[in-house]
Each structure stands twice: as structure tokens, then as C-alpha cells.
């Protein structure tokens, strides 16, 4: 700017410079001081003009005051300094040659107006800015609220729509909010739920730790816990839940709320219970089944010091007969009634009854007093069976045999206990049934051996543990060896040689008798062939083989025998099959048919152990039998001298009868020469016994036959 030195413009510029230097330090402008001076220069001009105007207008002062605010001189100090400048320099630099007194008055009035204008402008600016910032704050809150609203709406939808029950409570347990799923689970309205306290929701089935976990959580010692918990619904039903409770903390980490998430597991639980029930209960009687019983027995046997157990193993006597004669449906109804009666016998705590299968039941009692209690329990059971059971209009009398095992916990396994009970029950049954017996270790041991033999039998045949001994059959007339009886033996790896009385009944029971019998027959027939080949001169030797009742009814008997004879290439008359008298008692034609066919082929049939059963002499006629073997009980009585004349008469009569029916008579158990002589006199045909030879290997018979031939 070019101005005439000390001319009006120059003087105005100097005023503006002074002004800007005074005010600049207290402004907030981001302009530089020279820039700020440029802003003040027009204001200075206006003041200058107003000072010297023909007509004075103080409003110019107001405008300048307002303009200061616009130039960001908002600090009151800026006004103060501006007024100081105007007061000191305006008239001096801009007054010109006017009346000094008048100029001073005008300058003063301009200052008043500037102050008013500044104040007004500052007030307006302040209000405007306050309004602007409040509007901004409101708007921002609106934006945030909207965003929050959207988020909240989403969360609310999740909360409300969740299939899982959600509830929020404060740390005192007051319920603040619940979602729809939770209301439906509890069957309560939101209002009703919100008036409740979490701690009211105790339930008898609460696990012991449930409320301890709760306390820890509300104290802030635990962040969350998970339990299975039951709740009572207002309708009295039970709600089962998988419950997860979490602690919610505020921004400073202080515990604030508890959040519960609940899954309704009632149905699943019921299903589980039902499945568990079905897996552990007998479908027919509803009693606990074998699985359940074993669990309980195991628990009872695992109980601590001083605890005992008592077990009654019940098997109904003659149930098979009822089943066979009245049918399974009737049998089932009988079992249901028995089950009901047994159930009523075991009502005390620690007692239970279970059905193991078929007509086998067990009752268990536990505690420290079972020594006495188990006897009472058995007596109650026997008593419960006394009254006849009505099935299909028939009054059936049911009896049972009970094996009792009682003892301290912690000594035996469930299987051992049950086996002992089983054995004892059989003992009761063999003693005639309708009774109970107490387990006896010695009887157990015997039975356990029998049990062991039974299980070892099948492999024994495969392993070749059986062998055959032969006992000669001697002709009483001339003392010659006419044949031998084949007697099977078992060379048991642990028990040594076992006689047929030890294992044949077991083999009968398990059905192994059929393959075993076939094996014996085959071996014996081969042996007979060997003898015939080697000692053709010694006469036609015959082999006697025993047939068990089971073999007798086996449909393959005839075919097997024929096959073996043919394979061996030997005549049927080299074979005699021995059948016990008891096996043929009441035999009908069907049973006799295979024997008849064998007899027709030429196989001899001997009636073994004759005289032990209820011998039906009249029946002898229709049996396809050619030999009678008198039981050893007849010969035993002849060991003393003189022999009992009655016995002698009986034997004589039998022999006479036999001969008249064209039967030959063999006697067993001959032990002395006197016996042999007596029997010869009575007319017996052949004999066997220790007097001649004990059963032995086939070679011994060979020797015996040679002796006989040479002697």
C-alpha cells in the first residue's frame, strides 16, 4: 500500500497496526498478525469515518464490535484492548482537525457502541455455537440410538426367538427378564416369572453342588456353571433342564447380573429313563431284570465294612410241566402272578426282587443284618407261594426251590455268588423241592467241579481225552471169553481218569452224549473187528456198547449204527447194545422202533440193570431184547455165605422166566468163585466182574482170551 507519509491513509494504517499488535496475542485466529492487521484495517476505516462523519452514527461502533467477534476475537480481553486502542489512538490518528472535545465525545460513544456490538455478537455466536453443538450431540445420539436400536432389535429377536430359555436376574436372584421359550418351559407368564426369585426354585432332586455353585457365582467367585436341574411347574409336573448360568459384569468388572440359559431336557430325560427302564426291567413281569440285578448285586458286594448281603435264588418246581401242559400264555400269567407276590415280599429298603429269566427269580437283601433277614425273606417267599394261583380258571399250586447265599460284602464276585446260589437251589430241588437250602462251601465245590466238567466236555472229545476200557464177558458154562463190555473213560488233564458216572449224566444233559456215543460205538466196533481178525479161532467175540436214553431217542441212531458197521465191515451180530431198563419204562412203539430195526438186522439188544426199576415183567415180551443183564445188587447178596434164600429164589425165577422168553441172562459184579458157581447153578449164561477181570485196555482181553483158549 502506498500512502502519503503521514497522510490520512498512512495514519489509519498506523492505527490499525497498533490495534492489531495489541489484540493479536489474545485472539484465537490461525491467521498471522499481518493478515490479522489486514482484517482490522477496514474496521479502523469505519471507526475513522464515523469519527469525522457530518452526522454521527454510533451504530458503526456496534458493527465494528461485532466484526471483532467474527474475526475470532472472542476473548473479552480482545475487546478491552481494542477499546484501549480506540480511546488512546483513534482521535490522535484519525481525528484530523476537528473539534477535539467533540471528537473525544464521539470516540467515547463509539467505544460504548463497540462494547455493546461485541457483547451482542459474542452472545449470538455463543448461543449459536451452543445450539450447534447441542444439535450435533442430539443428532449423534440419535444416530447411535438408531444403531443401538437396530442392534437391540436384533438381539431382542434372538432373545425372543431363541429355542433355548433365557433369563436374566440380578445378584439377589430377582428375575429381571425372561424370554418366551423360558415362559413356555415353566408354563408361567412373564409377569409371574418376574415376580419370582431364583432362590425359590429349589427342587428335591437338586444335586448337592447346585446351590454352592450358585452362591459362588453371585459372589463373583465363579464366571459360570453348568448343571442338570429340575424345576417344579405350577401344574405340578417337573421340568428338567440343562442349565448354564453365567455371571455378567459391568464395564469395571463388578458382578452385575446373572444370565441363565436353559434347555428343556424333560422329554429326553424321560426317554432316557424309559430306555434305561426297558434295559433293566423284564418286559413280562416288570421286575428288574438280570442286568439291573447284577448292578445292584455288584453294588451290594462292593459295600463297605460291616455290610452284608443275602440272596435267595428261586426256581419254580415243575414249571416246565405247567408250560407244556397249559401252554406258554398260561405259564406267562403264572409268572406274572408269582412276580407280583415276590414283589410284595421285598418292601424293606435294601431289598429287591428280579427275574433272571424263565422261572428263575432272585431276591436280594442288603445291610448289616442280612444273616437273619435272608432267612425271613426266604420264608416270606415260600409263604407267598402257598396260596394256589388261579390261571384260566384252574387253581395251580406252585412250589419253589430256593438257594440262599449270605455273607459279608467285599469277598466274592457277583458271578461267584450267583453260581453258589444256583448250585444251592439245585440242591434244594434234588432234595425234593418246595424248600430252601443254605449255601454250603463243600457242596459248592462238588458242584463247581461238575460245572467245570460240563464246560470242558465238548473240547475233551476234540482233544481225544476219552478212551475205552473193556471188561470181558465170560461164559459161565465153560469159562470162555465170549466178548467184552466197552466202558468209556475220560483222561481229564486236571482230575485224572474219570468214570462214566462222573460225566455221562453231564454229557446227557448237554447233548454231547450223541457224538460221544457215536465215537464209543465206532471205536468199540473197530476193536471187535480186530479181535475177530486176530482170533478167528477163539470163537465169535461180541462187543457190548451202552446206549444212553438220549441216544435212544436220537433220530440218527439206526443210520449211524448201520454206517459204522458197514464202514468197519463187520457183521451186526458182533455188536450188542445195552439199554437200561429205566430208559424203556413206558416206552411206546415209536421209541422201540429203532431198537426193533437194529434187532432185526442182527444186533443184540441187552436190557441193562434189570431188576433195579419197577420191572414190568409182562412188558418184556414186547421188547426187542435178547439178553437180560441182572443188576449187581442181586450178585452182591450172594457174596455172603450162605446166600439169602429169597434172593436165590428170585434170581432163579428171573432166569427161568428169561429162558422161557428165549432170553439169555448175564450177571454183573461177580467177585468170587463161589458167586460164579452159585450163578452157574441158578442157570445164568454169562457173567462179568472183578473175579474175571477188571475193565482194561483191549490187549488185556486178548491175553485173557488166549489164556482161556489154552487153559
Amino acid at each position, binding site marked *: 500500500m502506498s500512502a502519503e507519509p503521514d497522510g490520512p491513509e498512512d495514519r489509519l494504517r498506523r492505527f490499525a497496526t497498533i490495534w492489531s499488535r495489541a489484540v493479536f496475542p489474545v485472539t484465537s485466529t*490461525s491467521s498471522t498478525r499481518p493478515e490479522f492487521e489486514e482484517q482490522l484495517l477496514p474496521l479502523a476505516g469505519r471507526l475513522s469515518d464515523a469519527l469525522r462523519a457530518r452526522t454521527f452514527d454510533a451504530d458503526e461502533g456496534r458493527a465494528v464490535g461485532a466484526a471483532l467477534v467474527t474475526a475470532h476475537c472472542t476473548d473479552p480481553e480482545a475487546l478491552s484492548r481494542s477499546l484501549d486502542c480506540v480511546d488512546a489512538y483513534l482521535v490522535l490518528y484519525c481525528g484530523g482537525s476537528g473539534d477535539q472535545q467533540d471528537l473525544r465525545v464521539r470516540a467515547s460513544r463509539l467505544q460504548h457502541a463497540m462494547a455493546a456490538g461485541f457483547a451482542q455478537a459474542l452472545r449470538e455466536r455463543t448461543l449459536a455455537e451452543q445450539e450447534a453443538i447441542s444439535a450435533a450431540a442430539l443428532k449423534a445420539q440419535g444416530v447411535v440410538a438408531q444403531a443401538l436400536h437396530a442392534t437391540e432389535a436384533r438381539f431382542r429377536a434372538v432373545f425372543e426367538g431363541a429355542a433355548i430359555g433365557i433369563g436374566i436376574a440380578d445378584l439377589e436372584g430377582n428375575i429381571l427378564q425372561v424370554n418366551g421359550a423360558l415362559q413356555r418351559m415353566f408354563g408361567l407368564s412373564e409377569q409371574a416369572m418376574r415376580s419370582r426369585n431364583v432362590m425359590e426354585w429349589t427342587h428335591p432332586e437338586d444335586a448337592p453342588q447346585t446351590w454352592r455353585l450358585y452362591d459362588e457365582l453371585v459372589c463373583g467367585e465363579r464366571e459360570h456353571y453348568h448343571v442338570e436341574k429340575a424345576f417344579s411347574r405350577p401344574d405340578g409336573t417337573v421340568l428338567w433342564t440343562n442349565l448354564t448360568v453365567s455371571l455378567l459384569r459391568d464395564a469395571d468388572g463388578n458382578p452385575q447380573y446373572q444370565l441363565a440359559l436353559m434347555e428343556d431336557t424333560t422329554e429326553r430325560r424321560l426317554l432316557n429313563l424309559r430306555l434305561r427302564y426297558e434295559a433293566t426291567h423284564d418286559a413280562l413281569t416288570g421286575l428288574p431284570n438280570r442286568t439291573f440285578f447284577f448292578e445292584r448285586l455288584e453294588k451290594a458286594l462292593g459295600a463297605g465294612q460291616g455290610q452284608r448281603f443275602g440272596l435267595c435264588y428261586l426256581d419254580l418246581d415243575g414249571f416246565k410241566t405247567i408250560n407244556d401242559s397249559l401252554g406258554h400264555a398260561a405259564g406267562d400269567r403264572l409268572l406274572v402272578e408269582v412276580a407280583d407276590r415276590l414283589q410284595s415280599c421285598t418292601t424293606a429298603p435294601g431289598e429287591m426282587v428280579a427275574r433272571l429269566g424263565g422261572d428263575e427269580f432272585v431276591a436280594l437283601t442288603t445291610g448289616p443284618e442280612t444273616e437273619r433277614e435272608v432267612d425271613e425273606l426266604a420264608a416270606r417267599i415260600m409263604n407267598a407261594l402257598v396260596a394256589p394261583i388261579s390261571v384260566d380258571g384252574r387253581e395251580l399250586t406252585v412250589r419253589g426251590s430256593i438257594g440262599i447265599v449270605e455273607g459279608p460284602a467285599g469277598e466274592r464276585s457277583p458271578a461267584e455268588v450267583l453260581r453258589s446260589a444256583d448250585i444251592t437251589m439245585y440242591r434244594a430241588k434234588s432234595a425234593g423241592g418246595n424248600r430252601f437250602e443254605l449255601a454250603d462251601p463243600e457242596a459248592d465245590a462238588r458242584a463247581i467241579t461238575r460245572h467245570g466238567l460240563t464246560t470242558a466236555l465238548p473240547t475233551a472229545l476234540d482233544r481225544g481225552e476219552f478212551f475205552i476200557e473193556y471188561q470181558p464177558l465170560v461164559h459161565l458154562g465153560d469159562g470162555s471169553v465170549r466178548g467184552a463190555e466197552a466202558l468209556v473213560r475220560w483222561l481229564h488233564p486236571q482230575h485224572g481218569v474219570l468214570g462214566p458216572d462222573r460225566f455221562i449224566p453231564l454229557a446227557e444233559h448237554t447233548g454231547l452224549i450223541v457224538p460221544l456215543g457215536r465215537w464209543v460205538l465206532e471205536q468199540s466196533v473197530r476193536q471187535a473187528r480186530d479181535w475177530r481178525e486176530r482170533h478167528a479161532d477163539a470163537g465169535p467175540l461180541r462187543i457190548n456198547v451202552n446206549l444212553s436214553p438220549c441216544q435212544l431217542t436220537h433220530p440218527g441212531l439206526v443210520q449211524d449204527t448201520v454206517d459204522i458197521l458197514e464202514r468197519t465191515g463187520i457183521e451186526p451180530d458182533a455188536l450188542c447194545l445195552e439199554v437200561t431198563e429205566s430208559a424203556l419204562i413206558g416206552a411206546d412203539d415209536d421209541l422201540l422202533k429203532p431198537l426193533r430195526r437194529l434187532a432185526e438186522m442182527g444186533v443184540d439188544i441187552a436190557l441193562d440193570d434189570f431188576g433195579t426199576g419197577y420191572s414190568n415183567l409182562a412188558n418184556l415180551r414186547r421188547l426187542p431184547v435178547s439178553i437180560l443183564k441182572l443188576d449187581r445188587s442181586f450178585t452182591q447178596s450172594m457174596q455172603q455165605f450162605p446166600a439169602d434164600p429169597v434172593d436165590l429164589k428170585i434170581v432163579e425165577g428171573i432166569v427161568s422166566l428169561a429162558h422161557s422168553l428165549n432170553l439169555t441172562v448175564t450177571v454183573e459184579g461177580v467177585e468170587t468163585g463161589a458167586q460164579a458157581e452159585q450163578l452157574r447153578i441158578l442157570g445164568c449164561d454169562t457173567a462179568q466182574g472183578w473175579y474175571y477181570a477188571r475193565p482194561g485196555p483191549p490187549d488185556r482181553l486178548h491175553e485173557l482170551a488166549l489164556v482161556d483158549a489154552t487153559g
Partner: protein
Amino acid sequence: MERPAWAPRSIDISVPSVSRIYDYYLGGSHNFEVDREAARKAMEFLPGLPKIMQANRAVMRRAVRFAVDEGITQFLDIGSGIPTFGNVHEVAQEASPGAHVVYVDHDPVAVAHSQAVLAGNDAADVVAADLRKPQEILASPQVQRLIDLNRPVALLLVAVLHFVEDADDPYGAVAELRDALAPGSLLVLTHASYEGIPLPPERAEGTVAVYKDIRNPLIMRSREEIARFFEGYDMVEPGLVPMAAWRPDTAPEDEDPHAFSGFAGVGRTA
């Protein structure tokens, strides 16, 4: 719908805001009593705070003009706060009509106010975002609309990095932004520091404590630490210097001594 009792409120004007405190220092009335109270407390320790803020504004103004002189017409101002006067868009659009300006702040009130101020200005806009999440800034529709990242940009980080704690990795954020800029872009940065304050350090510490109290810690960094923000930039003359010493328009002796507090610098991407 009823607001759940546990839902947090996210705008709380009862909590002081650094943007509004800044406005108060600059003589504005875009503030509330809580802000003024905090500002007054801070000023008890450092009465020259308004001068420091003024120096910030002044150096920013000089730097924007420098950028316009360099041919830059796009400005990204992060941590812009409450627009009072002498804002980037005013300075830039005065020097280069039509220059594009995008303001960024994480204070929703500052953003709302900026929207009001910028209403009708098509070349300027504001983004509610956080310096600590540069990708959100760069991906915002406003930046997409107004800033062409293939051309040089002036990135302004004026009086903002000293509010980002090391735990939030300010260096990483600055580097991420740098990597998004075209060659020839400028970084305009000012930062608080104990260095240059014309008072004993314990006075400045009093101010730092006030900011800590309002949960907006003020992180004072050394010149060396501030210089590390310019990694990958070539420093523009005169380098990283006290604010008033950066390309001053007037003789430094005219400046208030507080204007030499903290540092200012401009860097250029290669």
C-alpha cells in the same frame, strides 16, 4: 421397545471430549461444562494451551497452503475434531477452489457437527471412523467418493497421534495409511511433546494427568519417537521442528513462546 436395563449407552455427553476441549481452547462455544471444566483444569498447569492449539491451527494452515502449492487437491484430515474456523476445507478451497476434503473423527458429536458445517459443500465430507482402523477409513464411501488414491493426497494427522497409545499400534496405522497413498502424497503431522514447552516438565505432567482422568490419555512422545511416524517419507524442509518453526510466515520472535511446544513436520512419499 423398552431399553433393557443392562444395555450400554454409547454417547455420554457428561464425559469430556477432547474435540470440545480443543474448541474451548480456541475460544469456541462448541462445548459443554464438563469439557470446559477439564480444559480449565488442564490450563491451570499450562495456561499457554490455547496458544499451543493456535500454533497447531496455524501450522496446519501453512501446510495446507504448501500442499496446494505442491499441486495437491485432495485432503484427508484424520482427527479433525469440531470444525470451528480456519478448517482444512476453508484453507484448501480458498487456495484451490473445488479441492476435495474428507474429515475423519471417532467422536460422534464432532462428526455430527461437521456434517452440519459441511452441509451443501459437495467437495467435503466427514467419516465416523477411527485412526486405529485405517482400512475402515479407506473403505468408507466418503473416501471412495472424494479421494482418488491413485493421485497424491495430503494426509493430515494434526494433534491426533498423541491420543493413540502404543498398545494400539499408532505406527502400524500410520504405515498402513502410507501404503495406501500414491507417490507424491504428503503427511502433515503435529504431535505433543515435553520438548519445547516453556515451563518445567512437571507442569506439563499436570495436564497429562487431566487427560488421563478423562480417559483420553495424552501420550507425550520424544522428537525421535515422533520422527518414526515419517518412516517411508522424505522429510520436506525444514524437517521435524517446533510448530512455530515450520515455514513461518512471520518472524519467530513475534510468536508466543508456547507455539514452540511439540513438533510439526511434513513428509512426502517417494
